[in-house]
């Protein structure tokens, strides 16, 4: 976590932690995961209103918040707590949606508490899967993008499409608009997602949020922030996984001793702790730098934070399951859930891909 004397942040951290650890225990949260697995969709009646009360939308969407460097730090507190608490509610997608609207200068386009989810192409800095054709008093949109995190519960889809001239447009499309096919499903880690297809959707002109090359700045900034906030979620999950594994080593007995008495396991536990602290420290540093926006230094640190977090996540995920033995595979114990959560992160932010990206940022030849 970011070293801080910031009172708001500490109160927020206390609030989310209390919510996820004392008021809604693992069993209750996992019951919601199972309910979603039966096809009922996300139950937004339980935890969600409490998260709203904590002000998760305001943190991100408030116009002042975007100007306030602290707001990114506040969001990171929520993200880390969600990861540690293995909560499946789309708090992070919700914050990112509100944030992008604010970054694009049009926070007001979203009604209070509306869940707007950002297209994966924007969050991952890829070319959009959608195209826009101007028509009388609006646009006609077509295309497809898969795996929108939180897309299963989205009310608004924030997506980018280039028109025939190649100019990017940001649309805030109602998920229930005719022609929009939103296929919801659950990920292995329990969170919801969706594939979104637009088949010649005719849009109301009011759905256009912003357009033009100025969007590039907002997009780059949301990409940077989204990646670091996802890393915060992973840092939280690593912290939870390590604490759980440490407890396992202290309490589980084999061959007449706690398994933590075995040196090979001790050394592996130390390495798990080591790689968590490295990731945590660098994510925090990158987060502070990101408050200045996505400049070269910010991206350098972000590359480091993402690569380190991905590598640490993989190691901790695998070791957590292995050191728990059979118990590490069961549904009713958090170990496997941490494995799933951490594996999702490191597959969405592959260490090798980001290492290559970093190598392109800092070409050797300049150093020569």
């Amino acid at each position, binding site marked *: 976590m970011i070293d801080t004397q910031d009172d708001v942040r500490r109160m927020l951290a206390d609030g989310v932690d209390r919510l996820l650890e004392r008021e809604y225990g693992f069993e209750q949260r996992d019951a919601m995961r199972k309910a979603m697995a039966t096809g009922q969709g996300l139950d937004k009646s339980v935890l969600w209103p409490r998260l709203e009360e904590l002000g998760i939308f305001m943190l991100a969407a408030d116009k002042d918040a975007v100007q306030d460097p602290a707001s990114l730090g506040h969001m990171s507190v929520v993200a880390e707590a969600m990861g540690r608490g293995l909560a499946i509610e789309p708090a992070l997608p919700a914050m990112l949606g509100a944030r992008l609207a604010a970054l694009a200068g049009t926070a007001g386009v979203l009604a209070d508490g509306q869940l707007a989810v950002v297209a994966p192409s924007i969050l991952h800095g890829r070319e959009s899967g959608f195209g826009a054709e101007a028509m009388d008093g609006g646009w006609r949109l077509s295309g497809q993008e898969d795996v929108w995190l939180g897309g299963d519960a989205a009310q608004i889809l924030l997506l980018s499409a280039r028109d025939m001239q190649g100019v990017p447009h940001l649309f805030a499309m109602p998920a229930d608009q005719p022609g929009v096919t939103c296929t919801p499903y659950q990920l292995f880690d329990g969170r919801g997602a969706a594939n979104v297809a637009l088949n010649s959707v005719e849009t109301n002109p009011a759905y256009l949020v912003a357009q033009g090359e100025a969007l590039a700045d907002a997009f780059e900034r949301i990409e940077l922030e989204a990646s670091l906030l996802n890393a915060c979620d992973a840092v939280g999950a690593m912290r939870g996984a390590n604490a759980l594994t440490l407890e396992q080593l202290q309490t589980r007995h084999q061959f007449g001793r706690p398994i933590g008495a075995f040196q090979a396991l001790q050394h592996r536990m130390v390495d798990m702790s080591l790689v968590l602290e490295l990731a945590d420290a660098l994510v925090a540093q990158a987060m502070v730098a990101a408050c200045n926006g996505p400049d070269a230094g910010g991206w350098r640190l972000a590359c480091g934070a993402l690569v380190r977090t991905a590598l640490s996540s993989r190691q901790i995920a695998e070791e957590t399951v292995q050191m728990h033995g*059979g118990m590490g595979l069961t549904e009713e114990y958090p170990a496997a859930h941490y494995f799933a959560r951490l594996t999702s992160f490191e597959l969405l932010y592959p260490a090798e891909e980001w290492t290559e990206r970093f190598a392109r940022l800092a070409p050797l030849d300049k150093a020569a």
Partner: protein
Amino acid sequence: MFSEEDTAFADEVRDFVHSNLDQDVRRRVICAQPVSLEEKRVWHATLARQGWAAPHWPVEWGGTGWSPAKNYLFVETLAEEGAPELSPFGLQLLAPVLIRYGTEQQKRSYLPKILSGEHRWCQGFSEPGAGSDLASLKTRAVLDGDQWVINGQKMWTTVAHAADMMFCLVRTDPDAPRPQMGISMLLIDMKNTPGVDVRPIMLLNGERTTNEVYFDNARVPAANLVGEVNEGWNYTRVVLGNERLNIARVGLCKRQLRHLEQVVGRSGLSGEGRKRIRRHIAGVALDLMSVEALSLRMLGRYQLGDAPGFEANFLKLKGAELQQRLTRLLVEATGPSALRLGADGEDSNLLKNHFDTRVVSIYGGSSEVQRNIVAKGMLGLTKPASTAVKGARA
């Protein structure tokens, strides 16, 4: 290593799978999609009709008398071609014990039904406090007249909920001087024994493949004791020492590798991403080569009369690692859609399958236990003569 006859035989096995295994079942095995117990039973019966359900058994009980090389090739070729794995509990684990230590009555009663697949067996070894440390098991059995009365709890009992029978380790002498002594092996009818309660352990993959089994004054006939009373630990070694020749699962890995290559070949991956995954695939393929080489060396030595040594532990360790790397690479090659849970399409459930594969370094002697065993042998029990050059200070 292999004679021409051997390789011709492997081709015959290959053809048999292609001609006799349901194509959709085969496809699902290759894509790691679910195959039902009933579908597995059908395949068991198919092999049994061919006389191939238990080739390693003695001929008099339905085995084939094949050479170790043929047995090795048979198992690896089935796996390589996508045949579902038959449940090992009766065929591989119990049967060698029964054949060696069982009564004539036990053999005649159980072996034919294991061979035909009529009876499904489960293994009652692990307990909540006795997983890797089996010797500390606590489930008690007391002889009361001509019945054993069993109390206690087993855990991680694979497919107990669908089993007809269990072979079970129980403590029959709680005062034995060492925990390994005082353990016996009992056979338990899972369908018709009051006091046996099977409760599911749900894994995160959403499947019930394993269970807790509670015994509350469950009674089994005295005749269901295997071998001598208090000698069960020795039989355990026979169980755990079985089938070491195929322990690395080279055939399975080859199949996974080929599937992975096909997925990548068909995928839209390009540029650096494609190069990266190809490097990893090449790395696994090369590593698999060394595992196969060590397997074949162990087989060759076995044919010369040497029992498998540390190679078997090495191959268990390394085979588990390879299987995990292969399922992992399939996820990486597929990208984010591999995170999806659900039954429609080859992409989905890949992360779940990768998760399932974590178990291979935990069960059947975890990787930690394998390393402990080798270390004990290398450092303690045997004192190998040093073949290294020695310095002045040595």
